[in-house]
């Protein structure tokens, strides 16, 4: 599991909106995985299992947060989405335009993009991690990519 850490952390950074949240997410996923490790089936892929845990945690937090933040939609729409300034600097991870463009994607597109394009999973594997049909995955992936291209095209 230790060897998977850099990849899991990368996935967390692709999902979360800033570096501090990403490492919090990563930590929560590790704790969850350690607690429920007897549920992992030997012979199945440990990485997919870990990714699924992390993704489900992320969805839970994202939902809770969006309920709490519904009155602050305007802030979300601004271009300054990103670091909290303090803790983010410590990680020294700057994802720049790409990170900002990712942040603006709807969650369902962002997770598809993160699994396939960032983590390099095959469509089939990504669909299994997200527990959605292949067709749903490909259509989310297409929409996410088109949005990214448009946003990054504007930024360039």
């Amino acid at each position, binding site marked *: 599991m*230790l*060897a998977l850490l*850099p990849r899991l952390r990368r996935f967390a950074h692709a999902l979360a909106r800033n570096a501090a949240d990403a490492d919090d997410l990563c930590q929560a996923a590790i704790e969850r995985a350690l607690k429920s490790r*007897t549920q992992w089936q*030997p012979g199945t892929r440990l990485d997919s299992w870990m990714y699924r845990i992390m993704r489900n945690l992320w969805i839970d937090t994202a939902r809770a947060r969006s309920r709490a933040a519904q009155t602050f939609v305007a802030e979300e729409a601004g271009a300054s989405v990103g670091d909290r300034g303090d803790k983010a600097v410590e990680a020294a*991870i700057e994802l720049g335009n790409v990170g900002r463009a990712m942040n603006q994607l709807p969650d369902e597109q962002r997770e598809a993009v993160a699994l396939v394009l960032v983590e390099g999973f095959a469509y089939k594997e990504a669909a299994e991690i997200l527990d959605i049909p292949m067709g749903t995955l490909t259509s989310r992936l297409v929409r996410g990519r088109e949005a990214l291209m448009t946003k990054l095209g504007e930024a360039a």
Partner: protein
Amino acid sequence: MSIPPETLMAYADGELDPIAAKRVEKAMAADPDLARQVAEHRALAEQLRGTFASVAEAPVPESLRAPLEASAKVASLDEARAPRSGRSTHWFRNAGALAAMLVVGVMVGQLVPHDGGPVAEKRGALVASGTLAHALNTQLAATQPEDAPVRMLVSFRDRQGAYCRTFAGSMANGIACHQGDGWRIRQLRAGHAEAATAYRQAGSEAAAVLADAQTMMAGAPLSADQEARARADHWR
């Protein structure tokens, strides 16, 4: 002929089977705009990979490592499970090995007799030969041609430290590990010749092989760079 955006994207990602891919290539030849879109898809994928690579390469903060290192001292995942399944595990593993040998036996019958076939027998062990040996020696997962007869999937080091590679071809899928000066076949399964579907499902056709690779693996699969370095060192 119009190509749906999903199909074009799947082509750019190497997810189409050869027939569907040919169809897209034909359409691309006739329509430069399609070719441009494919290039854009690949450029975006490259940009995302490149951006997030910095995260995977950055040192992992102590706060994330600590819980895992602490738990590793108590019990590894494997050990945590072993007591629960008890003796039956061993029986099951042996049965699995036996079944694997049977499969191999049947397949060797088909594969070995052909001169220059992918698998040969050498001092009682199955080794890769011909095209398969060549692919194992030279092909990198990141740069191999889309239509390579044998494709390399995941490469990794096993617990003895030997380099192992999973491969998928029309005749056979399997795992080979470098030993001495050749590749010893550790697992062999029937290939995907008859299983072509609209999406190639590179994951599913070799899912069983990959699952087994996961259990043989010490650490994470090799990155593209590590794979290239391993090749430069002749997989030693």
